[in-house]
């Protein structure tokens, strides 16, 4: 069971109060993109054992979207942050590095 704190309203709840929105920080490739880029955007996903970044929505609460960093193995939530960003904040990355030295995920580490 994940315990998430919504960065938009500040409430802490367990995961059934939220809705998972899939992998975070995808770059969208639409009409006019190459076949490889479009295929990657549609189908290719990280599937890590360990540090992972996802989108979540506080569906039964304030209704807002946000990002969460968590460990897929232990379900530890490292932190949550605003939806309006294309990468995890440095502060959060440092916090993850302290707990999971050498972690990497997509282009981030």
């Amino acid at each position, binding site marked *: 069971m994940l315990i998430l704190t919504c960065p*938009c*309203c*500040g*409430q802490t*709840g*367990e995961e*059934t*109060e939220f809705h998972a929105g899939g992998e975070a920080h995808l770059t969208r490739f639409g009409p006019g993109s190459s076949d490889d880029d479009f295929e990657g955007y549609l189908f290719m996903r990280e599937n890590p054992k360990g540090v992972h970044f996802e989108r979540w929505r506080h569906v*039964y*609460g*304030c*209704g*807002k979207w946000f990002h969460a960093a968590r460990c897929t193995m232990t379900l530890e939530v490292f932190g949550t942050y605003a939806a309006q960003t294309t990468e995890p904040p440095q502060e959060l990355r440092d916090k993850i590095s302290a707990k999971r030295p050498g972690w990497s995920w997509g282009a981030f580490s």
Partner: protein
Amino acid sequence: MSETVTALNGAVWSKGIATITEAPLQGMITLRGDLSISAIKKAAKTATGMAVPGPGKATVDGDTGLCWMSPDEILVLCPYSQVAETLDKMTAVLAKTHALAVDVSDARAVFQVSGPLARDVMAKLAPVDFSADAFAPGMFRRSRMAQVAAAFWMPDADRFQIVCFRSQSQYMFDLLKVAAQPGSEIQKP
């Protein structure tokens, strides 16, 4: 003028560990907009005479109040008979602001769970910490109760006020009755 009634006609059930009551008609106005803008704060104040509460808080006095719903939404409570009048006043204040004020009174139902074991009933239904330190009068929370969305606050130490969708009122009433059935105490009163 048609005679308006609540979804369950004021149903009451008091055979269990807490009393479940469907509250009378409650005026509810959804106010959406940037809560930091003065016109929004003024609209809320014009409607209720109260200041906009902070996140997770509600200021409620009887059937008048303001509840913090999200970073861009306030639930305005007012007497049911005064909704149109209140809405007119708010709309005038918001004339030049990007905002929305809508009467949602008839889209919702309101329930009360009361008694010394009201916390037990709530704790069975929502994934929220209902210990006295964690949830107290003055606080406001949106969450789920079993399978439906709900928002709630405590008018006093032994009472919860719950708002849900009107179409789910029978489900909510039945749910609360099951959670309050005799012999289902979690803690001793």
